[in-house]
């Protein structure tokens, strides 16, 4: 199954096969099963829809208003002018570019590092348990905490990393160096997650296959590129999709490390600032909607180009 929401909607109506229609009524057991299924799913479905679908529709509505919290009386319908304002603003495009750079660079590094880490954890002959335990720490640690650790480390006169730099340099105040630090913080935190997903994919490559390749004369690099990676493709795609979407939402690290100053703000940062610094709910909502659209496009792109399948959507509950 793919992620096309239209197909999803169609699939639900298709659940009732035409053969069944007009035939014998469902037995007690079958009816009870359907009832139970619906009841069990209802709370989850209601909460998820109520907390996401309604607000996003409301956000679209808000984005069409002139709505400044400082002047609530001046609220009025403004059509697409908020979108016009955002899309012609240099701030938006700069934040967008920064977000894309952070996303692409960090996911690329995470993939390479994550693969290496996965291979290490999969193949290591000593300290396997310890390594696996320790790499979970970056995954589990609170992002804000990790961000502070990096911030202090790079602060001149305070940090061990800043101390290694030349006298007087303040990496967090330069645009390029600050972005590099943001990427570093992202990569450090999420590489283990990537590695775990890839390791699960690695476990699906049968050892015999690698032995066979070795006998056939494939070197380590060839085994990796010709056998391991192609067989891990599903796991890789899922890992990349989730990490890309996740990286695109980058917020915590930037908030702590630079507050988005010196041109280091992401789109999430921009949306936040418009809401809580400029108090402009109309513009803020327009940014929210645009980010939503961008994320949807990325997801669609992944599915169209790579044919990534939804995890867990495979043969669900097949009897």
């Amino acid at each position, binding site marked *: 199954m793919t992620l096309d929401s239209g197909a999803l909607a169609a699939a639900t109506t298709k659940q009732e096969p035409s053969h069944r229609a007009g*035939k*014998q009524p*469902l*037995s*007690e057991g*079958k009816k009870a099963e359907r009832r139970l299924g619906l009841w069990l799913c209802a709370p989850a479905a209601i909460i998820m829809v109520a907390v996401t679908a309604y607000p996003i529709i409301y956000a679209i509505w808000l984005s069409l208003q002139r709505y400044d919290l400082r002047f609530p009386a001046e609220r009025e319908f403004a059509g697409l002018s908020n979108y016009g304002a955002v899309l012609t603003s240099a701030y938006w495009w700069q934040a967008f570019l920064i977000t894309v750079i952070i996303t692409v660079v960090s996911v690329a590094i995470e993939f390479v590092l994550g693969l290496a880490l996965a291979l290490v954890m999969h193949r290591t002959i000593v300290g396997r348990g310890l390594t696996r335990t320790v790499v979970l720490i970056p995954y589990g640690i609170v992002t804000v905490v990790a961000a502070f650790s990096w911030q202090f480390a790079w602060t001149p006169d305070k940090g061990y990393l800043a101390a290694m730099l030349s006298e007087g340099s303040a990496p967090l105040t330069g645009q390029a160096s600050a972005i590099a630090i943001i990427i570093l913080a992202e990569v450090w935190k999420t590489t283990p997650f990537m590695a775990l997903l890839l390791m699960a994919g690695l476990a699906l490559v049968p050892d015999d296959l690698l032995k066979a390749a070795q006998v056939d004369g494939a070197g380590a690099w060839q085994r990796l590129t010709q056998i391991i990676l192609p067989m891990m493709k599903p796991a890789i795609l899922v890992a990349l999709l989730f990490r890309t979407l996740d990286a695109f939402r980058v917020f915590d690290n930037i908030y702590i490390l630079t507050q988005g100053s010196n041109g280091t703000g992401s789109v999430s940062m921009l949306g936040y600032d418009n809401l809580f610094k400029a108090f402009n709910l109309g513009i803020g909502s327009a940014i929210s909607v645009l980010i939503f659209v961008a994320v949807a496009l990325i997801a669609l792109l992944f599915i169209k180009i790579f044919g990534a399948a939804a995890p867990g959507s495979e043969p669900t509950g097949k009897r």
Partner: protein
Amino acid sequence: MADIVLDHVYKRYPDGTLGADDVNIEIADGEFIILVGPSGCGKSTTLNMIAGLEDISEGELRIGGARVNEKAPKDRDIAMVFQSYALYPHMTVRENMAFPLKLAKVDKAEIARKVEETAQILDLTQHLDRKPANMSGGQRQRVAMGRAIVRSPKAFLMDEPLSNLDAKLRVQMRTMVSKLQQRLETTTVYVTHDQTEAMTLGDRIVVMKSGVVQQIGSPQHLYDEPANLFVAGFIGSPAMNFLPATLENGSLRTSLGDLGMPDRVRRALEAADAPREVIVGIRPEHFEDAGVVEDHVRARGSVFTAEVDVLESMGSDKFAYFKIEGEQAMSDDLAELAADAGTADVPDSAGQLVTRLSATSQAREGERSEVWVDTDKIQIFDPHSGANLTSKDPATANA
């Protein structure tokens, strides 16, 4: 206890295929009936429909005279033993066996008594407080049986309950199941793909193929009077030999030579208006080394001479394998049997004649040997419909 009746039962899947196609079976109270057939023949589907785990698309299922189509499994009062045993891994043996009684709200003292009693029957008393994970396959199997019998249900359903055991244990458990059923006298429906199990256990056997019942009858009846090529080939081990033959001047021309036709066969063929081209079926034990057959017996059969390809001495008797020259018997039923047995891919297996000779036979590998055929016992089949043209059984003539 109760009888079980399947009355024109169909199972139709959403894609239109039939899992069960007009199944009619009347299972008497206390009867031990076996559903047998190759995988995908609809035997498990039929069992699941009786259990209530699958819906019946059409037709009626009656247990103890009452229609139960719409009843949930729990309201049918039948117990089931699964191939994987389906023991609850988080419960001890005692808890596993007590589970159905607890659900039925039987009082505690009664539960304890029944579990003890059942454990005694199955020799599980000393294992009652163990978890299934720490038990052997045979012990787990017994626990699964125990969970079924503890609540004295109207019927037992068993879905290949012995197929996860190794060969030796399977034979032992087979005897146990058989004894248990005789003792409890509970209606039992037992699904298997193993014809030996079917032959040894059942009061009656239902042979199924592609959702269709091929024949219902006692093991001996199915063996002696198979309704069609499929049943003939499925029941019996080693399997019946099939040879293409032509009816000519009152005898059967086969690649082994001409076989004489006894009156029984001749009359049956005339009555059935048989085609000229037929398939002859001969069971391995209906051959004998011509040298050990007494003359007056020899006269009522036919004799041919051929080179022994392989000879296996079992001690009690000898199996001699001959190569069949010329074309081989062809029919849909036979192709399906070969596919199920996996012999379709084995070179030569189809062109082989299996004979079971007495231990005193002088036949040797690689030498020509005179073999006698008891033509009295041969079966003649229609190659197109697969029907047994020589069967005396009127009920199976249309199968």
